[in-house]
């Protein structure tokens, strides 16, 4: 460098760039073109692995506040999501259901692949919020209380369905949705449908496969339930697995064969 000025905090050449500086600029620019291609390749691989999450936008900034926005800009998305989730706990104590709804929407947008955010978020809405509104003594009209209760159940259901769109390969949210249909909507056919879907997913606990049968019986679909129990029984390759609870399946088949008056020659367990 032929000369320099230090006033502005960095070295500035007085009479143009030195050879070293020019070489540095050329090297950086040449590498820049290569690195952009490399970065795009890395990003394509990450997209193929279905890594996803909310892109930082003005709408997000308005929801999370400036402090947390700085966290997002600094690469601490997980920690920011955790703080948003901690806010759900605070709102729960204050029974601020719409605040919880907003926070659940935000946290699931930040980390859509973390299942407990969907599961617990839906639980807060479909159970805690809906039951709170159902027991709301400040509302004299029972019709309105029931309407409010159903509103929050539908919100919880919506959360789980959006969760399923983001995580179709995991069993957990099918199970949660089945649970919601069973306990909050008393729609046992739908519950059986989602429990069966949950049981088909990899990593699902083996007891889930029996839940679909229980729900079909509760829905009064005895013939379908009988066919389902028979299907579970006719898996000789799994007979050594104690977690399949063969004794429970046998009892269910015997009950249905009696209830449906199945002829002895067609029964699995003749009298």
């Amino acid at each position, binding site marked *: *460098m032929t000369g*320099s000025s*230090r006033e502005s*905090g*960095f*070295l500035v050449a007085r009479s143009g760039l*030195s*050879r*070293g*500086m020019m*070489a*540095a600029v050329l*090297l*950086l*620019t040449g*590498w*820049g*073109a290569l*690195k*952009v291609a*490399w*970065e*795009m*390749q*890395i*990003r394509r*691989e*990450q997209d193929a*692995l279905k*890594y996803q*999450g909310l*892109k*930082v936008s003005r709408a997000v900034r308005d929801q999370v506040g400036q402090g947390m926005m700085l966290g997002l*800009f*600094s*690469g*601490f*998305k*997980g*920690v920011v*999501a*955790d703080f948003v*989730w901690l806010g759900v*706990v605070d709102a729960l104590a204050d029974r601020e259901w719409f605040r919880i709804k907003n926070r659940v929407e935000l946290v699931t947008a930040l*980390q859509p*692949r*973390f*299942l*407990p955010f969907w599961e*617990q978020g839906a639980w807060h809405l479909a159970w805690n919020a809906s039951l709170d509104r159902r027991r709301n003594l400040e509302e004299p009209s029972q019709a309105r209380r029931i309407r409010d209760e159903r509103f929050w159940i539908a919100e919880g259901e919506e959360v789980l369905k959006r969760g399923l769109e983001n995580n179709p390969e995991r069993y957990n949210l099918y199970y949660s949705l089945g649970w919601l249909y069973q306990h909050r909507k008393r729609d046992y056919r739908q519950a059986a449908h989602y429990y069966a879907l949950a049981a088909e997913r990899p990593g699902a*606990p*083996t*007891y889930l496969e*029996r839940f679909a049968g229980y729900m079909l019986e509760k829905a009064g679909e005895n013939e379908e339930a009988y066919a389902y129990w028979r299907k579970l029984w006719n898996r000789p390759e799994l007979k050594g697995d*104690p*977690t399949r*609870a063969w004794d429970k399946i046998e009892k269910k088949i015997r009950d249905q064969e009696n209830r449906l008056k199945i002829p002895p020659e067609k029964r699995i367990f003749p009298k």
Partner: protein
Amino acid sequence: VKETFVRIYVIARNTLTEALRQKVLNLLLLFAVITIGSANFFTQFTFDEQLKFLKDFSLGAMTFFGVLIAVMGTAQLIPSELESRTIYTILSKPVRRFDFLLGKFMGMIALLGIFLLLMTLVFAAVLLLKEQALIASETAFAQGQNLEPGALEHSLRDIRAQARDPQLVQAVLLVYAKLCMTAGLALFVSTFATSTIFTVATTFLLYLAGHLQATAREAWLEAGASAGLGQQIFLGAVSLLIPDMASYGVVDEIILGHSLPWSQTAGILGYTAVYLTVLLAVSYLIFHDREL
């Protein structure tokens, strides 16, 4: 060649020794360890959430304090030598500026490695303690409950799988790569900066811009003729000159329990290594012509 390596090694060792004696850096390490230790205190959540919070806060603390150590430690490597005038003694011996620069950088990444290893040990200990506590509480909860056969075993298996996830090794390596990249940026800035505060401030800005580089790159590549010339030049400069720090965000996916192939980790580590080599070369070219 051997003499060059010896010179670089000696400078790196001295840099490491001096950095280990710095109270500020040790204080930051202490804060990091305390933060990781206190990540164990989220107990009113499900075990999935507790383990996620612990991993998020621990790896977040490693990154946050690691970045502070990397920037503050690296930013003063050259200015401190200039202030104490030891750089003139060092460079008057048969030590080239390249040896000096590389030795200083190696000393700094060794320091980051040691600090990260210590933080990782604390993290592993806290994680194992959490695993034991969660197993005990799930087992106690299951007593007297009419659970389906296999339900408790399924939960315990989940806890163990999450607490002993071998992919956490990849996560720590990626955090280390990110810290080295930040130190590399700080070294690059310090070769043309004349004050430590300028280096620190500029490196933090580059670190933040690096997390938005992918957005700028996409806008640059997709904008075409619709963007103005000034906008294209700005987006192009950000895309070409700043590293994509968001690519290290896959650590979040590991925390969420998703499978991260080693090939993906190796790709990011390779990108970091090549980027650091280029940064060192550019830093040398600037430092070589600098009037001391």
